[in-house]
C-alpha cells in the first residue's frame, strides 16, 4: 500500500516543546526537598518570607535569586538545528542544517511571578547546494541556497529555582538567498515567531550568572523552525531597592 503522510515542521516543534516541558517538570521535582538545595549564597542576605527583625531557630529556605528588582542584560551563543529537508533529493548535492545563533537581550527582573524581556537573535540556519540540469533557465549548474533569521521578540520569563523558563512572541525576519549562474538574489519574510526556552543555571556569582539554555523557535508563517542550545551569560545592569 502506498501511504503518504504529511509530517510538518510544526509537528517537530510540538514534540520539542513537549519535551522541554517534561524536562522542566522533572528538574523542578528533583529540587523539591529543602534539604537537597544547594547552598547558594544569596546576593543579599534578605529572607524573602521573613522580616529582618524576626529570627528563627529553623533553617530558612532562601531564594537563590535576589528579591530586589534589576535590569538584567544577557548574551548567548550556541549551535542551532533547523527542522526540514531540501525539497528535491535528486537535485540536492550538499545540505547543512546545523548552524549557529547569537543573542542579546534585556529583562526586568523583580519579585513578581513573571519578568518581561526583549531579545534579538541572529541565526545562521541552513545552507545547501543543488545541481540543476539544463532547463528553461538555460545551462545547468549549481544553485547555492542559504537560510537565516533575525528574531526580535518580547516575552516573559520566570525562574523556578535553578530553572529558567522563557516564552516570547515576536517577529522573525527570515532571510533566504540564492546564487545561480553567477547571479545572487535574496528575499525576506516577516512571520510571527514563537519561542520557548528552558535554561538551567550552572554558575552564579554576585554580578554574573551562566546558564545553559535550550530553545525552540517556530516561525509558523514561514514554516521555519529551529532549536538551539546556548551558553547564556547574564548580569544585572542596574539594581533597584535593597542594599
Amino acid at each position, binding site marked *: *500500500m*502506498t*501511504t*503518504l*503522510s*504529511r*509530517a*510538518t*515542521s*510544526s*509537528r517537530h516543534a*510540538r514534540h520539542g*516543546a*513537549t519535551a*522541554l*516541558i517534561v524536562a*522542566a*517538570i522533572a528538574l*523542578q*521535582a528533583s529540587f*523539591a526537598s529543602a534539604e537537597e538545595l544547594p547552598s547558594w549564597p544569596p546576593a543579599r542576605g534578605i529572607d524573602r518570607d521573613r522580616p529582618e527583625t524576626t529570627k528563627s531557630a529553623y533553617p530558612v529556605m532562601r531564594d537563590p535569586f535576589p528579591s530586589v528588582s534589576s535590569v538584567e542584560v544577557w548574551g548567548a551563543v550556541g549551535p542551532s538545528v*533547523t527542522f*526540514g*529537508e*531540501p*525539497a*528535491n533529493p535528486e*537535485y540536492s548535492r550538499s*545540505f547543512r*542544517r546545523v548552524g549557529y545563533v547569537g543573542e542579546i537581550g534585556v529583562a526586568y527582573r523583580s519579585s513578581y*511571578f*513573571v519578568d518581561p524581556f526583549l531579545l534579538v537573535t541572529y541565526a545562521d540556519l*541552513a545552507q*545547501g547546494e*543543488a545541481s*540543476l540540469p539544463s*532547463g*528553461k*533557465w538555460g545551462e545547468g549548474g549549481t*544553485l547555492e*541556497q542559504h*537560510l537565516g533569521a533575525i528574531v526580535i521578540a518580547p516575552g516573559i520569563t*520566570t525562574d*523556578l529555582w535553578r530553572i529558567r*523558563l522563557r*516564552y516570547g512572541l515576536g517577529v522573525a525576519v*527570515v532571510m*533566504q538567498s*540564492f546564487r*545561480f*549562474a553567477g547571479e545572487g*538574489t535574496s*528575499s*525576506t*519574510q516577516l512571520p510571527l515567531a*514563537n519561542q*520557548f526556552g528552558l535554561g538551567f543555571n550552572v554558575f552564579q556569582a554576585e554580578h554574573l550568572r551562566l546558564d545553559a539554555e535550550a530553545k525552540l523557535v517556530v516561525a509558523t508563517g*514561514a*514554516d*521555519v523552525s529551529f532549536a538551539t542550545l546556548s551558553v547564556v551569560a547574564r548580569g544585572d545592569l542596574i539594581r533597584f531597592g535593597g542594599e
Partner: protein
Amino acid sequence: MNSKGLIFVATFALSLLDCEQSAEVSIPMFPDGGLLRTGRLLSREQLYLFEGMFDVPKGSDVLGAQVAVRSSKGTISLLTDKNAGFSVLGAACLPDGRVVAEGYWQYPTLVEAGLVRLFVDPPEVAEALCAGYVPAPPVELRGYYGRDNEFPREPFTLIWKHELKPWRGTFYTVAHHGACENTDHCGASSNSLESIRLAERIGSNAAEIDVRLTRDGVPILFHDPGLSKSLVRGLFCNGQVKDLSFAELRGSCQLRYGELIPTVEEALEMMINDTEMEGAYLDVKEPEGILPAARVASRTLAQLAERNSNADPNDDRRFAVLIAITTDEARTAWHAAKPQLESEGLLVPPCLVEYDPDVVLAEGCTAWGPTWTEGPQSESVQRLQSSGAATIFWTINQSEFIDEFLKQAKPNGIISARASLLFYRYQTLGTPPRRPDGTHR
C-alpha cells in the same frame, strides 16, 4: 512543585495546543500488482465499450445504486454522487480468457478507499474482447470490492443500462486546479501534472489551472502568492512566488505530495499528449501574467495546429486554451497583449471573461465564466449561447447547487472540485447546452 511552577508549565502547555489534524492519505494497490499485471491490456477502442449508465444491484454501499462509467486512455472510471466517490480501474484480457477490470475506489473528502476487482460478463463479450474485437453493449461487470487494504470480498455487480448523454465536446466538467482541493485526500497536489491526470480519470474533460509568474517571468501553475506550507515543502522554499526565479523554485520547492511545480507549457503539453482532455482554463492571477500566459498558449496551439494539418489523421487532437480575464486590470493587460502577440507572429488565443457577459461579446471572447454566487442567470446564459459563446460557472461542489444550475441555466460547463459528482449529476439530470440556433446538442 510550587504553584508558580505549575501555573507556568500549564500556560506553556496550553500555548502549544494545536488542533490541526493531519490525515494519512492511502491509495490502495494490490500487493502483487493484481491480475492486470498478468494480462494484456485492452485497447483504447475497446474501453469505449464500458461507457454508459450502470445499475448496481450488489455493492451499492460503496458507490450507490447507480454509477456513470466513462473511459480515458487506459482507464475505466466509475463515477457517482455518493460522497463524490469514484473508482479508477484498468482492464486486461487474462490468459484464461476472462477480462478483468481492477483498481481502487475512493471518497475524496474522507479517508476511505478500497480495492476493486471485476470481471466482464457474459463470457461471449470477454471472448470478443480477448480476440481483439470491440463488441457492442450491453455488458456486465461482476466481482468484489474491499475496504482499506483488504482483499476485495464484498459482492459488487454493475449492469449496463443505457448510453451516456453527449458530453465530449458538449459539456465540460472542468477540474478546479486539478483533481482535488487542498483539504482532500486524493494523493495529488492541486495544480500539479499528477493532479490533472487524475482529474481526467475521475470525470473531468477540461482543467482550470492557476497561473503565476516567477521573478524571471516564467508562467507556472500556482494558486497563492506565497509559498505556504499548505501547498509546498522544502527548507529553502519560502517567500513569495514572484521573488524566486524558476531555477530557484525548481531547485528548492516541491508541492505537498512531492511533485515538481510545473510550468504552464509543461501542463499544456501533458494535457495534449498524455490525456484526452479537451481544454484548459488559465486563471491568470496577476495582470502582468496575461501576456506570458497568452504567449505560451498561442505557441502551444500553433504546434497543435501544425500537428493536426499533417498527413496522419490519427494524431489529430482537439484542444482549447482559454485565457481568463478576471478583472478590468486584466482586461487592460489583455488589450496590451494582443498587439504584442501579433507583432511576434502569434495568433491571439481565445479568451474568457469572468465578470460581465457584455464584455464577453465586446471583446469577442469565446466564453463567459461567472461565479455561481450570482445565481444561474439563465437569461444571460441563453443570450450568450445564442451568440455562440459558452458559459462555464465556477466553482460548484455541492450536489444541490449543481442540480440547480444544470436544470435552470443549462451551461456549457461547470468548474468543480467534485468531478465525479458533477459528471454523474449531468448524466442523470443535465441537459446538453443550447447550440447558437437554440437547439440542444
